[in-house]
């Protein structure tokens, strides 16, 4: 065929119309959600796109694996895991931040940079559906990144014959905390990434906001608490960095062991942390919707 006719000429195969089902908004949004989730791990794209997320997933699980092995090897001496489940997120925050910094721009900056957004909005997909699908997709990816090592540790604990009831409760609470981490991280990351079409800059900006805020706030908390002996003020300072914020949230709400320098001060502090956490999530949602309302070309 291609020898008889020049390439690019239309073949007269006959056009077939489409009479099949046309799924509504809900199904389309769900398809976009799955697409975003897969894209966060490089699935459905080129091989090179998979390298970094999979590498990060591996690095994320490695310490958990080591901990599980240690627990089993020394189960005669240890009666619990060397590192509590709920502290894993803060300990591994570097990996989480890099993953977020690499994949949040992947989720939104690409569409802005290549100007694919009008193609989405000229379809039966509302703007808020787009935002929801991207937000949920990235949050799920972050949650999976946190849940995998927790499950590895849990299996290790069960194999080491630690009390199953206690381990199950602990891991369940840690997973709830992981949900909070995932949503807050994804929200802040997406807001920052959606402000720029340049992927490199989005990556740097996300890292800066998370890493610098954590370094600055922890250092400040350390100084205020131990030099000034003011644990209350140090506790309040934790509101100003996403990592310490969610850590404080899970410490107070889920009774997790704190990894921060200073936990939320008292009940007032705890309530404050909860309010700010939900406030941050709400603000991210609103800002993302606002940003995409203005896109028209």
């Amino acid at each position, binding site marked *: 065929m291609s020898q008889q006719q020049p*390439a*690019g000429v*239309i073949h007269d195969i006959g056009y077939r*119309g489409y009479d*099949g089902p046309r799924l509504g908004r809900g199904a*389309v949004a769900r398809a976009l959600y799955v697409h975003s989730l897969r894209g966060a791990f490089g699935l459905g794209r080129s091989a090179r796109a998979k390298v970094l997320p999979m590498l990060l997933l591996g690095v994320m699980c490695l310490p958990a694996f080591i901990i599980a092995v240690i627990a089993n090897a020394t189960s005669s001496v240890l009666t619990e895991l060397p590192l509590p489940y709920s502290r894993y997120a803060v300990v591994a925050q570097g990996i989480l931040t890099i993953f977020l910094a690499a994949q949040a721009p992947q989720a939104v900056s690409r569409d802005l940079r290549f100007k694919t957004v009008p193609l989405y909005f000229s379809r039966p997909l509302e703007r808020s559906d787009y935002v929801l699908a991207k937000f949920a997709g990235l949050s799920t990816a972050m949650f999976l990144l946190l849940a995998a090592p927790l499950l590895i540790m849990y299996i290790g604990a069960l194999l080491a014959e630690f009390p199953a009831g206690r381990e199950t409760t602990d891991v369940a609470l840690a997973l709830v905390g992981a949900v909070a981490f995932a949503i807050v991280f994804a929200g802040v990351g997406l807001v920052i990434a959606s402000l720029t079409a340049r992927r490199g800059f989005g990556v740097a900006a996300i890292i800066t906001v998370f890493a610098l805020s954590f370094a600055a706030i922890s250092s400040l908390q350390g100084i205020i608490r131990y030099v000034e002996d003011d644990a209350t003020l140090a506790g309040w300072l934790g509101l100003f960095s996403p990592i310490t914020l969610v850590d404080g949230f899970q410490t107070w709400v889920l009774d997790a062991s704190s990894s921060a320098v200073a936990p939320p001060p008292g009940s007032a502090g705890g309530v404050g942390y909860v309010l700010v956490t939900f406030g941050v999530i709400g603000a991210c949602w609103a800002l993302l919707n606002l940003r995409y309302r203005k896109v028209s070309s």
Partner: protein
Amino acid sequence: MPVIQTEELTKRFPAVTALDRLTIDVEPGVVGLVGANGAGKSTLIKILLGLSEATSGQARMLGLDVTTDGPKIRERVGYMPEHDCLPGDVSATEFVVHMARMSGLPADAARERTADTLRHVGLYEERYRPIGGYSTGMKQRVKLAQALVHDPEIVLLDEPTNGLDPVGRDDMLALIRRIYTDFGITVLVTSHLLGELERISDHVVVIDAGRLLRSSSTSEFTRTSQFVAVEVTAEPDTVAGQLKAAGLDVVRDGHLMVVPLEDESVYDIVRDTVAQVGVGLIRLEQRRHHIAEVFGERGSQ
């Protein structure tokens, strides 16, 4: 039933009025929307799709109101933007499948229709390579494919021949014509090139600075007049004299001679006269109106 209807549609920006009380009625077929750059063509398309909001006035597509029934309209409409809109690192197949799913097709149907549509627009083995390496012609085809893949009732094509070489342009225009005649999908095409729209449209809408200049069927526009234009290499006066002697009315129009076409014998008379005088015949054609004349008319209004 008109597929596109606007009534006093106006869009004002702080610095410029993009559309000024535009009122048009478009029947099924291939409709050409002509206007210079900045005349308001893209703005109109964006308002029809719900990507942008009109300042005042009404617009209806397929009988549905653009502001209240946006999602229903968008289920049945395909859009091919003017600007680059394709990601560089996925293949055409992956991209069009994804867009098909975003239009509401289930996964299997999306894959099937993508394969069909890419074949219809003329992309074969290239469809598995990343879009970043495509030529402009191939990219335009991918853009067209994503607009057609969900079998819409109407497609809006914004400057589809931009950046194509002459052969590519012809191919694209032929394809656009087939979209209506073979696929049964109404097409709204914009361009600032008048000649190509003349060739493929059933109906032409001309706008300038947001205002409607003229809206009528192509055959009205370009109907052949009953005149023949003659152009020779040398001695036009001699030839004109001879033609008058042969009984034809000759009107001079610059270097052309215009002769009324009473019957077929006029062609023979002209040919014989010119050969007798001994000069070369450059042109012997029926005078047709051109869309460009519409812009001339505006000047005289």
